[in-house]
């Protein structure tokens, strides 16, 4: 089994705060994987370490076998992250933003793929609009497009549907499922547990920087028969074992 993401004894300390306390995790290529946990559980810290935005205090993370610190160029080429915050550069249009993002990954002639991604995310009409003028939902779509411009085999979606309307949510999941069918590995963090139950094949739950549950969605639902994922999540958070 080839691994898209491999996390070994990953630790992150901010002074006295232990944000991650030795997390081990494996995500196989082609999986749709859910990373769940309450606020402050360490999900975004883990993703940030994988993306190279935060340095680990100990342990290692690999994307498609490439160490995110020692072999960061290869690791970053194979990873696309949709950040949780609605961040954008107010100087540029949607198309300029996506072209610049392509260029950061050394892709100079990428317009055909950029057009395709914009089409799937219903961004065609906004291609030449300045990022400042877009609604929150549209900005979220651009963030997804930015994560995809270099066709990464591993895509991390950090709460991609937070504050997003039903129509975009539906369109987004259709597109992400298609990417997954095409072979992209998806790692999703979300607070909407029905989305995780619907989309993810396997689920990990973090609490206070530790992994407290890791199993297939089917096994989790079978183990706590009669409960939905939200109830299972609350029970695991109350009694981690």
């Amino acid at each position, binding site marked *: 089994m080839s691994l898209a993401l491999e996390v070994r004894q990953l630790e992150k300390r*901010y002074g006295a705060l232990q944000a991650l306390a030795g997390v081990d995790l494996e995500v196989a290529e082609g999986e749709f994987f859910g990373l769940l946990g309450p606020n402050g559980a360490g999900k975004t810290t883990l993703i940030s370490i994988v*993306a*190279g*935005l*935060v*340095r680990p205090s100990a342990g290692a993370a690999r994307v498609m076998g490439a160490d995110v610190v020692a072999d*960061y*160029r*290869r690791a*970053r*080429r194979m*990873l696309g*992250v949709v*950040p949780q*915050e609605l*961040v*954008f*550069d*107010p*100087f*540029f249009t949607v198309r*300029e933003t996506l072209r*610049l*993002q*392509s*260029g*950061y*990954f*050394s892709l*100079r002639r990428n317009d055909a793929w950029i057009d395709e991604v914009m089409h799937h995310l219903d961004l065609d009409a906004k291609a030449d609009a300045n990022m400042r003028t877009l609604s929150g939902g549209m900005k979220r779509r651009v963030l997804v497009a*930015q994560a995809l411009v270099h066709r990464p085999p591993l895509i991390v979606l950090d709460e991609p549907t937070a504050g997003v309307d039903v129509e975009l949510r539906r369109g987004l999941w259709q597109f992400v499922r298609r990417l997954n069918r095409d072979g992209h590995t998806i790692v999703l963090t979300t607070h909407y547990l029905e989305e995780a139950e619907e989309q993810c094949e396997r689920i990990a739950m973090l609490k206070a920087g530790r992994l407290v549950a890791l199993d297939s969605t089917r096994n989790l639902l079978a183990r706590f028969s009669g409960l939905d994922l939200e109830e299972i999540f609350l029970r695991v958070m109350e009694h981690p074992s």
Partner: protein
Amino acid sequence: MSGFPTLLYKELLRFWKVGVQTVGAPVLTALLYLLVFAAALDGRARVYEHLSYAQFLVPGLVMMGVLQNAFANSASSLIQSKVTGNLVFVLMAPISELEFFGAYVLASVVRGLVVGAGVLAVAACFVELRPASPLWMLAFATLGSALLGTFGLLAAIWADKFDQIAAFQNFVILPLSFLSGVFYSIHALPPAWQAATRANPFFYMIDGFRYGFFGTSDVAPLASFAVVAVSFAVLAAGCLLLLRSGYKLRP
């Protein structure tokens, strides 16, 4: 291939898109300095025998524009990206610390040189200018803007807020540029102030640039160039070390 050309292009596009603010405004400021000071002091102040005060003033104003805008470019771009959060797109890309440093500093050099050329062009409409050694001018303008671009990058790596950058500009860059001999020759100063001015790297950049203009300066141009080059090397090494350590950018 790397992301360096795109990051450089993005940094150039960023300041060019707001050219009125980033190029037009500093050119106008320098022109106002020239008109006011030259009108007020021409005939009363003469620094070199063969030059009018307005002619003496122009290279200092050009270099002041170059240096202040080189600092402003890297500092404002990075702090803006940090505060708004869009820096993540650069930090998540396969771009090395050296490429990151090079793109920000080169964009600062370009903005510094564009502003300098603008000030020079406008000043030439009012004052007769005959540069003696354009190569020295270019060398000091390029290295000086690289030095200030690096300083701007360091300031923005450290700063968490816009007002901290404004404090750098108002309490460090502005006094250092005003007290570096833009408006006077250090020979007009008392010995203690002359010594203090010689500890200011801005003095060597402006004096060296002025040599390129008139073939006359307070310090030998090679010595000034060496001071600026060593200052740049020290700041650049410090900046690269900070970037490698991840200080404030990759906590």
